């Protein structure tokens, strides 16, 4: 019995001690997700992440703060009066830094050593698009050390002017890469141009022009825009579809299914400024003998009597063919969303020309744009058919003192500049660049004359992400408020 005991005990001990670790090895690789992915698929993800940083919360906030929309219920009533807390911006920062910048750096790490240059160029332009937008909204932000956790656990907040400068070089690098024509990614990788280098080069120039506009380097903006997007077809639009949780228009989803009733374009205090400009029945209507905004007004807004999300007040228009309507509005379920457009480029040409003192060139560009609008422009065909529109060319006299666009006797240049800036404001409906223009021109003769939604001040910026404030010791302390001016506007 002793022997039996001894051996059984020994066997037990030896068996158990020896067996332990070997039995649990190699079971912890994730059976659900890969440990790496091809650059092509990552790039598509980067494009989606980047798109949300232009079409999501940032765009809605900007629209509320530039008099294009009004927050009227739940959190959005509070945001409307500039009470936007830091916690509201974390999701956007995640999409900017994690979604776009981190993953785009992974793409570059994979493809640059292989000499895949067109693809690298597209990636760099996308980075500049994302970070350019971010710095225009938040000012000083992490960039040079961002999204490289292996090297920088607490990225520095770069000076805003330095960021703009480095984005211009990044775009130049990207243009050079694209110019080689070598290394076009597989079809389906790029959701905008399917890898076409020429289209990307044009986009890169329009983007350069946008960033120069932000920094008021108008002559450089003019030079860049001359190489920018030359036709509506060359615009970068995010395509949308009708599948929930997959591809629906962000505004449509927000204004309708997700947060119906939170954002309108008017309330008992009155209509948003852009409504007053476009509504033919409004005293502030910008139409004139050469201009009929009826179609654009209806394409943008749904009247109080017909409003579906905020019954009783005018609202951003979400009518959709896919939902049984006979019209497909600006924020229809599947309406494409403008990211970088021909409209922006030509209006930049117009504005920078007049700022350079070239009245004639500016007027030509403006009329070229009006001719585009007169053909329907970017307005959905259902609205062109259902409502009247007219954009006849302006002539120099229209901007002379007492002319139809200069009743208050400004200089002709200023009058034209004001008209171009206003056209930009109207055209950039729902985009963050409308707010860039408003801030850039604030206080000047051509400024968009919006009144604060509350108090006596207009905001200059968004608040940094709460997670960034909590997690990055290099985050500015105290956190700048929305009313603190940023470097490029000083």
């Amino acid at each position: 019995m002793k022997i039996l005991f001894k051996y059984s005990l020994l066997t037990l001990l030896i068996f158990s001690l020896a067996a332990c670790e070997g039995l649990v090895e190699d079971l912890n690789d994730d059976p659900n997700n890969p440990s790496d992915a091809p650059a092509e698929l990552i790039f598509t993800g980067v494009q989606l992440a980047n798109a949300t940083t232009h079409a999501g919360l940032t765009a809605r906030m900007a629209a509320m703060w530039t008099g294009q929309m009004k927050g009227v219920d739940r959190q959005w009533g509070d945001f409307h009066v500039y009470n936007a807390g830091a916690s509201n911006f974390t999701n956007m920062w995640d999409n900017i830094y994690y979604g776009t910048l981190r993953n785009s750096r992974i793409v570059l790490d994979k493809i640059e050593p292989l000499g895949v240059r067109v693809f690298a160029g597209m990636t760099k332009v996308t980075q500049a698009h994302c970070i350019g937008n971010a710095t225009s909204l938040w000012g000083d932000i992490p960039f040079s050390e961002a999204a490289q956790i292996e090297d920088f656990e607490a990225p520095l907040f770069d000076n805003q002017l330095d960021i703009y400068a480095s984005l211009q070089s990044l775009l130049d690098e990207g243009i050079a890469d694209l110019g080689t024509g070598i290394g076009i990614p597989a079809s389906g990788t790029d959701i905008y141009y399917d890898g076409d280098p020429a289209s990307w080069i044009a986009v890169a120039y329009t983007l350069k022009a946008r960033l120069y506009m932000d920094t008021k380097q108008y002559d450089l903006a003019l030079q860049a825009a001359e190489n920018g997007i030359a036709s509506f077809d060359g615009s970068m639009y995010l395509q949308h579809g009708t599948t929930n949780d997959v591809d629906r228009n962000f505004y449509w989803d927000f204004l309708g299914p997700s947060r119906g009733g939170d954002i309108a374009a008017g309330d008992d205090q009155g209509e948003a400024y852009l409504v007053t400009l476009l509504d033919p029945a409004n005293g502030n209507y910008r139409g004139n003998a050469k201009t009929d905004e009826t179609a654009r007004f209806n394409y943008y807004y749904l009247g109080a009597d017909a409003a579906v999300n905020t019954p009783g007040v005018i609202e951003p228009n979400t009518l959709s063919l896919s939902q049984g309507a006979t019209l497909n509005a600006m924020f229809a379920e599947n309406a494409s969303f403008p990211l970088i457009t021909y409209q922006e480029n030509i209006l930049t040409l117009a504005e920078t020309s007049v700022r350079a003192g070239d009245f004639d060139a500016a007027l030509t560009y403006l009329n070229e744009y009006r001719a585009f609008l007169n053909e329907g422009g970017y307005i959905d065909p259902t609205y062109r058919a259902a409502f009247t529109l007219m954009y006849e060319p302006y002539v120099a006299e229209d901007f002379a003192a007492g002319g139809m666009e200069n009743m208050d006797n400004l200089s002709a240049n200023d009058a034209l500049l004001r008209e171009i800036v206003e056209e930009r404001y109207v055209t950039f409906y729902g985009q963050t660049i409308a707010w860039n223009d408003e801030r850039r021109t604030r206080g000047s003769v051509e400024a968009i004359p919006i009144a604060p939604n509350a108090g006596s001040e207009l905001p200059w910026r968004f608040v940094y992400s709460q997670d960034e404030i909590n997690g990055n010791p290099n985050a500015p302390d105290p956190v700048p408020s929305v009313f603190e001016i940023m470097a490029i506007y000083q």
Partner: protein
Amino acid sequence: MRNLFTFIIPVRRLDKLLPAFFILGLVSSFALAQERPITGTITSVENSEPLPGVNVVVKGTTNGTISDIDGNYQLTVGEDAETLVFSFIGLLTKEVAIGNQSKVDVQLSSDTKQLSEVVVTALGFEEDADTRGLAFSKVEGESITRSGENTLINSLSGKAAGVQIARSSGDPGAASYIQIRGQNTITGESQPLIVVDGIPISNTVGAPNADVGNSGENTAGVRQQSRMNDINPADIESLQILKGASAAALWGSRAANGVILITTKKGRDAGKLDITFRSTVSLDEVNVLHPLQNKFGQGQGGIYSPTSSRSFGDRISDRPGGPDEQITDPNAAGYAGFYEARDGDRYYAIPSGSADNPNGGKNSRETFNDAREDQVFQTGYFVDNYLSMSGGNENGNFLLSLGHMTQEGIYRGVSDYDRSTIRLNANRKFGDIVRVSSNATYARTISNRIQTGSNLNGLYLGMLRAAPDFNGEDYIGNYFASPEAAPILNRHRSYRRYLANNPNPIYNNPLWTINELQNSTVVNRFIMSAEIGIKPVNWFEFIARGGADAYEDQRITYFPVHSAGANSGGRNEEFIFGETQLNFDAIGRFSFALSPDISSSVNLGWNINQRNYNRVGGIMQNFLIPDGPLNFSNSVGADRFPSDTETIIRSTRTYATANFGFYDQLFINATGAMESASSFGEDKTFFYPSADLAWQFTQLMNSSSLLSFGKLRAGYGQVGVQPDPHRTGTDFEAVSVDDILFGSWGAVLSGVGYGNGAFVQSDQQGDPNLRPEIKTEWEIGTDLRFFNDRLRTGFTYYQNEINDLLLEVAVAPSVGFETSYTNAGSMENRGWEVDLGYTIYNKGDWNIELFANANQNINEITSLGGSEGDVITLGGFSTLTSSVAKVGEPLSALFGGVYLRNADGSLDLDENNFPQVAPDFDVIGDPNPVWRGGMGGTISWKNLSLYALFETFQGSSFAPNTKSVLYNFGKHADTGNEVVVPAGGLVNYAGETIAAGQTVRGNIRDFGGGPVLLDEAWYTTLGQGFSNLQEQFIVDGSWTRLREVSLSYSLNSQKFREKTKLQSIDFSLRGRNLILWTDVVGIDPETSLDGATVARGQDYFNNPGTRSYIFSISINY
């Protein structure tokens, strides 16, 4: 070889222990002798029944045996043997001189002073509680069934010090949260390990998805079941809670939250078939409802609007009365078609009001808040039947039980819970050497649930926000855009879409929620276990114990076409969740005496455990045929989203325990477990030691009737929490519906819809060096009994520290990740527990017993690995009130916007004397109680018994978000008040001055700068639950409740037994949760927004709680 090497390093500490155990084991085998056999029978003095299991030892030696089921024993003793010692827990030990007898029969009497409990150790072996240095909490099966609860977890409420049970909702079968001695983890598994007859089983709450620690519960959806509730409470013999680390250390990294050991019922050798049939009927009703205003109609600014989200419209009593004006003429202005309900009622547009005519076309003065409650709520019920048959003889026994419980919820809709269980327990002995036992349980639960919480399809969200003057009875019907138009079928009529002229109702009509949605789960579960014991010699037994727990949960979440929000095109989710747990132990047990005064037992064991999780299923949306079958073919390919997830965790443990008793008064117990688990990073093996000491100091004293028993005890131990599996690396994940999505408040972009699909690096950084969280705890305590054991007390103080907390640390987004999963941070708990039992009177037919328990736990997070400002959101709403982990605060602290204050702490008011909100969020409350307790008693006279249990929960904060958000909607009763403006007038939040003498809707309040008027301007901006200023709403969440009360009678007289051949018939009448005292208005503060998770103390349109009246009858043959 590397593996072996890494193993050897941590093993070093055990190296010293193992040989010691080994030698101890060998020592015992030296007890050799030859010589004479002695036999005998041991019976009871009281009833002459044979006593099995009695220890028989030759005094002064290690030579001994135990009696068999007939009380017989057989022992070979040495020639020099003089005395036999007979001992058994609960019986007086007796020494008998052997002399030259070969047959020694003895009778043992019960030790009336010996009230010590039999407790079960972590390995499932029974021990005398008085020899252990730990605090045990034991709940008898009888007390579980007496609670009248149909789920096991809830029946434990209030029964044990340091054990907090919180039901998350009154929905049938909804999960409950168990917390033992405070929170032990932030992101890991927060629920105790459940061990049934030695086999761990699953207590998953919500969804067993990729993240084991993530319960799958959140602020929306339905409240799912706790898997522990698949066990029929009636099958339980006793349930014991190992609270401390020292008691549970053998379970290593699964024991940080304590271990609940369940012992199921077994048959007995009664010489006959025992049959018990019990039937219980319960009537359940809502216990608290939110007070709502019904004075003002739908609209804003005092003007009626039939589509407004708010109820700040006209005064209903000012309306002319009579039917509403409707626009029926297609050519009239404002005509909007019509809606025809299923019963034929037609609804046309009602003209909105105006400043001159505030009620517009709304003439009726009827209100519908009460009607809505009647339409939604009913008296729910359950019927629980239980039949058990058992029997046995000296060689074995069996018990077969059948249970069926069927419950209808408190909603007049699709809300129910059915549980059927079959269980067979069988034990058999083969001679004195081999015994086998097995358990087999099958459980099937079928349940339908109601959507709750922050959810456009949630019951309360649409119900409580609905305007008081909106009649929502006709919730489904057809919409006609014009008299000529074809109808749009089955449109959903809600208070914001009263004509159903839009596919999206914005918020569900509550009747749609309870009748048209489907949230079903069907669970099939098998729990099997078997044990074989081989006892070749009387001092050694080898035990092999294996078990399997497997279930499959089929869930359907169906939103028909025209449900609110993104589901208006219809949405159906079907998933099969599967979980399998396999467990095997091999244990060697040695028991011997080292010397006459030192008794000893040693266990050595090895365990392997494997858990597999699977989830397979899919989501479909935009049905092709609106009322088509729930089949994926009813949508186009782009609208189908299949997904699957699987995880595996395997662990192995080698463990040893040693118990030594000195002079029957000092007891030392030590255990050690070496554990390896697949989810750990580079270091795969960790050691968990524990030790405890018990000293029965009264053994040294003369027996005294004042202090009849006294024990001092101390314990120390380490336990852990496992990392989630598959988290040691940083993955790439699909940008798809089921995974990483890029979006913002609603819409999202998925790679499914763009290009060739998309993958990105995970937003969470993995950690190749993941370790288990380690909790180190010590406790000291004393058990004292006074007045011949009539007063029994226990006191325990404990302190623990949890290091290497596993956290999903939110990182600064600019580093390129959203979170990082790693070991970071630490947390502390300290607290005390008191148990008290007092037999006040016990004479003749009367018995009066009193009991009480209380405990305090203080939790503090000491580090979150990063900067002091780190906040980890655990639940709630990060933009409003959330539950967070924050350094220096207790876990689950409530976090939100606070008042802007002056340097002296007073409110910094604006120019109109209204408060302002500070720019940064801060801690605004602590939902953990300062202390909690249970108290109750039994009064019995003959066979009649009255029992009551009160439970209290004191000093906690509560965030009543339903109430505060109803302010925004002008729907809460508080916003329906009217006041007369006092002399001097009042200013409102918009800065308008309201003249004295006017009667206005609102409340007067003084924030410190003089009285101001709180009216619509305040309640729709800063004064409502969506504003950042959440601090203003936090209330004291303390409560006290009459948890249980029961009156029972047992018919078991001799005459009755003879006449009926029955043992007894027991009747009982019970109440559950009958009275609630609390300052929280409108909801039972036990509710939980995030379900059964660590995030506590918040309400946001949570479904209500219940109280119950229960009758049961039990027939015993």
